[in-house]
């Protein structure tokens, strides 16, 4: 759009991340202003699942995690061979959801992301009903092909939006051969993101 930016019209279907089942379709417009400020998004989706079913599924996931007797910890999910321990699947699923918040903020007209791996996860037990996890997730950036390492703190209670705080650094900046994960500016700014879309 001359003197304004680039506008994209999108029609797409969604699928359940776990089962691959059709989860609905969406219509969206995305306007990237020339000014490089964040895009303007309009989106409307039709879900195949009803609210009640979604609530039930959320509760099931929540209960699965709450019923663990010890704080959940894990590394390399999936592992090098693509395997995910069944017991850690819920934690991986939450990481996917949390990472999507990070990707939502970081994506631009020319940069996109996928979650490549959960490098580590540690559960923080809270006194209230919320579940809380500390993650290191690896994001694969396109087209640069970089792998970003993001520290993500995620809090959730069914019926509430996911709360995500994160800080990302490129795996490559000056680091070689597992010499630790400190990046130069260690006093990182934690971005906070609640769902307001």
């Amino acid at each position, binding site marked *: 759009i001359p003197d304004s930016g680039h506008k994209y019209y999108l029609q797409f279907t969604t699928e359940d*991340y776990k089962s691959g089942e059709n989860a609905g379709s969406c219509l969206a417009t995305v306007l990237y202003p020339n000014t490089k400020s964040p895009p303007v998004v309009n989106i409307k989706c039709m879900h195949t699942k009803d609210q009640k079913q979604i609530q039930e599924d959320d509760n099931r996931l929540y209960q699965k995690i709450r019923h663990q007797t010890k704080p959940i910890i894990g590394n390399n999910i*999936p*592992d*090098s*061979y*693509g*395997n995910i321990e*069944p017991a850690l699947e819920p934690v991986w699923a939450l990481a996917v959801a949390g990472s999507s918040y990070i990707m939502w903020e970081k994506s631009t007209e020319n940069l996109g992301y*996928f*979650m*490549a*791996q959960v490098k580590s996860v540690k559960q923080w037990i809270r006194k209230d009903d919320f579940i809380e996890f500390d993650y290191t997730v*690896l994001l*694969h950036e*396109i*087209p*640069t*092909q*970089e*792998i970003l390492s993001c520290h993500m703190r995620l809090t959730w209670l069914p019926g509430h939006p996911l709360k995500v705080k994160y800080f990302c650094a490129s*795996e*490559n*900046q*000056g680091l*070689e*051969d*597992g010499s630790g994960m400190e990046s130069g500016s260690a006093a990182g700014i934690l971005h906070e993101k609640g769902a307001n879309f």
Partner: protein
Amino acid sequence: MKILLVFAALVAAACGEQLFVGDQVLRITASNEEQIALLRVLGEQVELQLDFWRHPTSPGHPTDLRVPFPSLQAVKIFLESNSISYSIMIEDVQELLDEEKKSMMTSRRIERSTSMFDFASYHTIDEIYDWMDMLVDDHPSLVSKIQIGQSYENRPLYVLKFSTGGSNRPAIWLDTGIHSREWITQAIGIWTTNKIAKEYGRDPSVTAILDSMDIFFEIVTNPDGYAFTHSSNRMWRKTRSINAGSHCIGVDPNRNWDAGFGGYGSSSNPCSETYRGPYAHSEREVKAIVDFIRGHGNVKSVISIHSYSQMLLFPYGYKTAPAPNHQELNELAKKAVSDLAAVYGTKYTYGSTIDTIYMADGTTIDWAYDNGVKYSFTFELRDTGHYGFLLPSSQIIPTATETWPALLDIMVHVLEHPY
């Protein structure tokens, strides 16, 4: 009984089920005939789903009983209220099975690498190189192994040559693993080379191709990178060459070719994953292929295999101008992708690199194309981001199986369109 149980658990585990979580095995010692009778009656309660590993026989002899988790309380109350002594032999059957499964998988891997190769697993460089020798041994009149050079860290660069004779016949080149983290590709390389060897003399297309053409297949195109993904960093993409003046290692071997070298579709920063290198063909791994193809002089097709994205790409990546035979390449890609989808429904997109994925310069197929190789394609295999580079090994054979008809389509077209 125990073997059956382990087998059943393995099958169930393979199907994603956990059958024995929380189950316990109790060792029960009946002290008199009355207690033996009671135990027998207990076993007859079908709803408890009890599983005797050692049946009650006579007093003093242990009875071993697997109790499913839901029945545990009932059984223990029964035993205690009848003063039948017992101890817990196995606290959690599932845990034990998981451990066994792990160790079985390890030993299976060791066995199979020498007698029966496990195509459904990811392998180390050594396992792949050993297997290549086995393939040559099994098909001595068809397959040979040649070395086209050495990697930066002096690993041999091996290529499998499929030939039924002739002298410098028109040839098809395929490579997998140029980006080391794309593990599905090396795995496909093994399966596909095995398939080619098996199908000569059986499949009419493979036979027709090999009766007039040669096939060259480099499975581990970036051995240093591949070794590094096993030992240190699963996400390593580039070569492992040292960059002068930088602490960052490696060059992107798919930006290092002399075709549009140095543009915006690659990086000048050694720390970048798309670093093009100090100059075109600076990487030994790339130079070896350049020298081989140039030296050969009769290569008619180059197929370079990557992951992930599910795409079939053809030149150009470094410029928007369509390739002179764009139409033909587009039609061929369309057919290949359709035949691929026919196997399991896997959807691929296709088109020129720059249109379909992004601008990329210094790529393998652009160089091949600009050097006279009319049929140059890049495959981006499964998936589309769900597992990405960490594609589960259970998908190796399905991916190989569906990609095969697409590869054949291209090779048959090359055969039928000599130039």
